[in-house]
């Protein structure tokens, strides 16, 4: 027979399991940050209070579309039915190639990209895909802050460095959820990092290595300013570029920063933990 006491005790126990067991129950993560294992490319999923933000969509080649074959299954498995914001750091195939494949299966509500790439041939080709027609695109001319769910996203639009390299114009994203920050610099080289530091970059405990851990990114100065605890290298196994570069690994080792790699560790999901990030299962 159910009485008030039993019902009350049941509810308190149910809530306690939810509260204290949240780390053990993957689906209960309200806020999380996942670096998807998409081979040699980038795709980062931010989940916050039921909203989903995808930063880059992984690579696509004529023989393998990581967006459709890797990102979409992951999104579906983790209950993402709609992408509230898709952020394009820069229109290189290893970052944006998977976007059409994703858009064909999962609706995207908005896309954000730097205004400098508006007429970029790769972006022209990607954005003209039928699956992306009608999706609102925000072209950023200057930095902006967005709040989606509990996640605060700060976009930095750095000045052009006078070269024609798309990497130099990478859109930088600082993610802050519940006091924990993560920095994603796209493929920004160290010259761009200097400009970023001058903007007054705050510390962040998680850093996705710029340009997949290339020696030309992740300068000592950047590491000193943001003081990350963990660095993520989003790389393909035995990639032809030698990413992450030994010079970058050496810099991380000297600074005492823990490295996680998507080629060896697979998809990495972190949950905010009071200013830091805890690696989840």
């Amino acid at each position: 027979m159910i009485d008030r006491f039993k019902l009350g005790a049941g509810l308190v126990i149910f809530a306690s399991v939810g509260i204290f067991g949240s780390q053990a129950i993957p689906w209960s993560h309200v806020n999380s940050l996942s670096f998807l294992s998409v081979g040699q490319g980038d795709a980062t999923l931010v989940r916050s209070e039921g909203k989903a933000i995808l930063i880059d969509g992984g690579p696509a080649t004529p023989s393998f579309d990581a967006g459709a074959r890797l990102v979409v299954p992951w999104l579906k498995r983790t209950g993402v039915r709609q992408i509230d914001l898709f952020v394009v750091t820069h229109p290189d195939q290893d970052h944006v190639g998977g976007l059409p494949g994703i858009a064909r299966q999962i609706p995207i509500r908005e896309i954000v990209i730097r205004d400098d790439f508006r007429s970029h041939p790769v972006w022209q080709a990607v954005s003209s895909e039928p699956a992306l027609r009608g999706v609102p695109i925000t072209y950023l001319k200057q930095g902006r802050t967005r709040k989606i769910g509990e996640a605060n996203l700060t976009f930095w639009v750095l000045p052009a460095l006078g070269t024609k390299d798309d990497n130099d114009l990478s859109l930088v994203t600082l993610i802050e959820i519940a006091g924990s920050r993560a920095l994603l610099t796209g493929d920004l080289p160290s010259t761009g990092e200097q400009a970023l530091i001058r903007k007054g970059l705050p510390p962040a405990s998680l850093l996705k290595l710029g340009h997949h851990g290339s020696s030309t990114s992740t300068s000592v100065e950047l590491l000193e300013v943001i003081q990350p605890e963990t660095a993520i290298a989003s790389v393909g196994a035995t990639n032809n570029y030698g990413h992450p570069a030994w010079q970058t690994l050496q810099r991380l080792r000297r600074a005492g920063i823990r490295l996680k790699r998507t080629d060896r560790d697979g998809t990495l999901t972190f949950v905010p933990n009071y200013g830091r990030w805890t690696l989840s299962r």
Partner: protein
Amino acid sequence: MAKPLEPLFRELEELRLELEGRPAFLVFLAFLSGCGLIPSGGWSLLAIVPLFFAFRKQILFWMAGLILGTVLSPPPVARIQEKSSYSGLVTVSSVPSLVRDSLSAVVATPSGEKLRTTFPAAMVVSRGDVFQVKGEKIALSPGAFAVEEAAGRLRLTGGVKLIREGPAFWRWATLTRQSFVDFVRRSDPQDRQMLAAALCFNVTSGLEPHFYEDLRRTGTVHIVSTSGLHVMVAAGFLTLLLLPLPIKPEFKIGILAGLLALYAAAAGFRPPIVRAALMSLLFVGAYLFRRQSDGLTTLSVASLIYLILFPRTIQDLGFWLSIFAVGSLVLFVPSARALSNMTWREKFWQTVKTSLVVSLATAPLTAWSFGEASLIGFVINLVVVPLVDLAIVVSLGAWMISWVLPNLGSFVYQGLALPLLWLIEFVINGGSRFPLASVSVSYFSLFWLIPFVVGAFLLWRPRDRSL
């Protein structure tokens, strides 16, 4: 089919009638729902459904709470992430707290933007003071966002010039706190024990970081954050001093209100303190005017007054911790009259139960705030809380004596307060050494608190309408 559920329905009806007789509580619930209306995208209106079906008679009360909450709901704070320079006037909008070698305070720019900044400890800074400053606006430290009302930090780079002093009341409060800190420093030549200043006035600058860690592990952080407990102790102490005076109850209440306001201001004017001061006044007022008081109503009224005056407090963790702690006491601890009729053995077990209930009630919020849940908190609190109560009374008493007889004040402090403080430290240090003193808890959604609170209310057995 309905038979097995009949007792449940009957008991739920009894609970409904209990709550229906407390309109202030219903207004408080509706106010919270109103405050959450915009941030939750309308979901908080779901809380109105049970109110609508169960408390239609009180519709005017809770509709007023809902509308008031919606109107007063504070807008979200846009966080600063990019550095920018600032030069101009700022008004100190919080009571500065002593942190290490500086004074930490929230300041407001003329545009209304709030920033956390630090002034040199040598300066006299009070709430309401206006300064001309020059500095840089930068992002808050990681981990501070969840509970911080400020949008960012203001790093002072140039000179700080006082333009206008704030109200004298805040300056008196600052000087009162400083007088106590000076007394403690004078009376403790080894400068080892700043615990008294932390206990009585939330001056945590003298505490070592490892001691903070020990406090967290043992679930006793509240003792150095001048929570409602301290105000209740101070109010009790002051009421005892005022009772023998041959004056009308109205004057006693007036004097008590003035002294409590000064104490609350000196201790930081933080939400739990002010909430507790308001509750103390309502309780003492009911006692002096021979009226019956009700814990749940008093808690609701005190919280509502504070939220109406300072709506952003709804995001303050300390406020909620104090609501959960006092709420659990109100719901699950017998009335003072019932306690006085108990044997010593019963009183002991009741104290154990109280400590356990408060620890369990606050565990979800402390876990959410600190990422850590203490497993031995209720045992340690059982020992530490009475010691803290005693230490506060003795320290404040010694300080008051020192106004007239400085040497006697120091003697009382050294002879009575220091041993108590040493004992408190000893228990906390010892408790934190247990390997399973605390467990880490991952970040979780506060929506889990809804079934927790509803369950707690279902476990409530109303006995007596006085606390």
